[in-house]
Every structure is written in structure tokens, then in C-alpha cells.
């Protein structure tokens, strides 16, 4: 049981616990905060698994931008709380299906060769990663930036305040 393994299992527990708590919450804000914790832990896990650049990105983008965006929206939108009464027929089918999938997935994982092998440690420095990325995957990077532009424009348009005239036209 190496140190790395211990760290891994601790991090795993944290991630699972916080995600579980996140999906159970009634209030969306609570769920978002738990999720931020989960993403932090995931970032650390990435670092453990040899991707420091991605770990940083996880924290910055996922936990820092996306979840904060969620927070903004939750606070802006006046949503009625108490929407979900947590009826059993809502979550029972999902849980049943999830359990089935879990077992099947487990079977799948432990059948593939090499699943029992321990992972070696490794570290991909940001420089290496950057060179690799721009050498082999420059085109998807450009596309990704384009995608972000589109998302930006879309969000702007959808989020604008409608003038009186436009809302009357729609009616």
C-alpha cells in the first residue's frame, strides 16, 4: 500500500461523498457548493494521475467558472423552492437502472486485461503537454475556440432583455 494509493483512496472517498451529497440536496445552492468541493478533489486526483496542467484547468474552469456561473444563475433566477418533493417514483427507476449498470460495468472492467495492473506514476509537464497539443491537435483547439465563440454569442442573445415590442410580436 503505497502512499499514492492511500492518497488515491482518500480522494476517492471525498469525491464520492461530496457528489452524493450534492445530488441529494433540496436547495440548488447547496448542491453547487458540494459540487465545488467534489471538483477540487477531482483536480487533486488529476494531479496524482500525472496531469498537472489539467488539474489546474479543472479548478479554474470547472470549479471556478462553471460552478460560479451556476451560482450566479441560481441567485438571479427566482425559482420556487420545494419543487422536488423527492417522490419515490422519481428516483427509483433511475437508481435501479444505475445499480444494474454498475454491476454490468463492473463486470466489464474486471474482464478487460490489464485492469489489475497498477498504474505507474508519471507526470506530464505543462510544456510537454502544450507542445504535444499544438503539434497534433491544433485543429481541434481552433474548433474549440470557435465553439466557445458561438456559445458566447448564443448566451448573449438568449440572455438579452426583450423590448416591449418584441414580446408583443411574439404574442
Amino acid at each position, binding site marked *: 500500500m*503505497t502512499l*499514492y494509493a492511500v492518497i*488515491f483512496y482518500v480522494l*476517492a472517498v471525498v469525491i*464520492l461523498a461530496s*457528489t*452524493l451529497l*450534492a*445530488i441529494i440536496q433540496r436547495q*440548488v445552492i447547496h448542491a453547487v457548493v458540494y*459540487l465545488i468541493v*467534489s471538483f477540487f478533489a*477531482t483536480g487533486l*486526483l*488529476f494531479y*496524482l*494521475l*500525472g*496531469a498537472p496542467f*489539467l488539474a489546474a*484547468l479543472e479548478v479554474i*474552469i*470547472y470549479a471556478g467558472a*462553471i460552478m460560479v456561473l*451556476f451560482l450566479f*444563475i441560481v441567485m438571479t*433566477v427566482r*425559482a*420556487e423552492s420545494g*419543487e*422536488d418533493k423527492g417522490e419515490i417514483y*422519481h*428516483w427509483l*427507476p*433511475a*437508481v435501479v437502472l*444505475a445499480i444494474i449498470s*454498475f454491476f454490468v*460495468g*463492473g463486470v466489464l*472492467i*474486471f474482464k478487460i486485461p*490489464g*485492469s489489475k495492473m*497498477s*498504474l*505507474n506514476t508519471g507526470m*506530464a509537464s505543462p510544456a*510537454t*503537454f502544450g507542445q*504535444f*497539443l499544438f503539434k*497534433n*491537435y491544433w485543429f481541434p483547439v481552433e474548433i*474549440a475556440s470557435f465553439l*466557445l465563440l*458561438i*456559445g458566447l454569442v448564443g*448566451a*448573449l442573445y438568449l440572455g438579452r432583455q426583450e423590448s416591449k415590442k418584441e414580446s408583443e410580436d411574439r404574442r
Partner: protein
Amino acid sequence: MIVPYGDVLLLAIILFLLGAVCSISRRNLLMILIGVEIMLNAAGLAFVAASLKWSLLDGQAFVLFIFAVAASEVAVGLALIVYSQRRTGSLNADRYDSMKG
């Protein structure tokens, strides 16, 4: 030596299923989106583990793209949610059933 590869994948699967359960069983639109984010995150984890196993950087590059896509998708998704909340006044997914039948 860290952990067996299978354990990491197992973790990813559990995370993914948690996100799926959240997406399916919650009625609040925001919670559905949150479930999607959890699922994307789990996929990213699986990719990083695979990249470490095969000692290839392609997996990590793909995680980068996942981040980009997730970001733009969340932006647009949330804009849509805000818009539809303005239109119908409710964030309950069950209210949006005009395609019934």
C-alpha cells in the same frame, strides 16, 4: 505504483452513474444540468486514467476539449434556462410537456 487501473475506472463509473441519477430523477432544470456536469467530469477522469495507463498524451488533450465543450454548453444551457424561466415562470421540468402525446 498508484492503484490498479480498474479501480480508477470503477470510480469513474460510479461518478458517471451518480450524475446520471441526478439528471434523471431531479425535476429542477438546474439540477439536471448539474448532473450533466458530473457526468462530463467522470468521463474526463476516465480519460486521464487511460492516458496514464498507456502513457499517451492524447487522453489528456481530449480532457481539455471536454472542458471547452462543457463550458460553452453550460453557458448556453443556463442562458436557455433563464430564458425559459422568463417565458413560463417555472423551473420544473414537468411543466414543459406541451409535446405530450
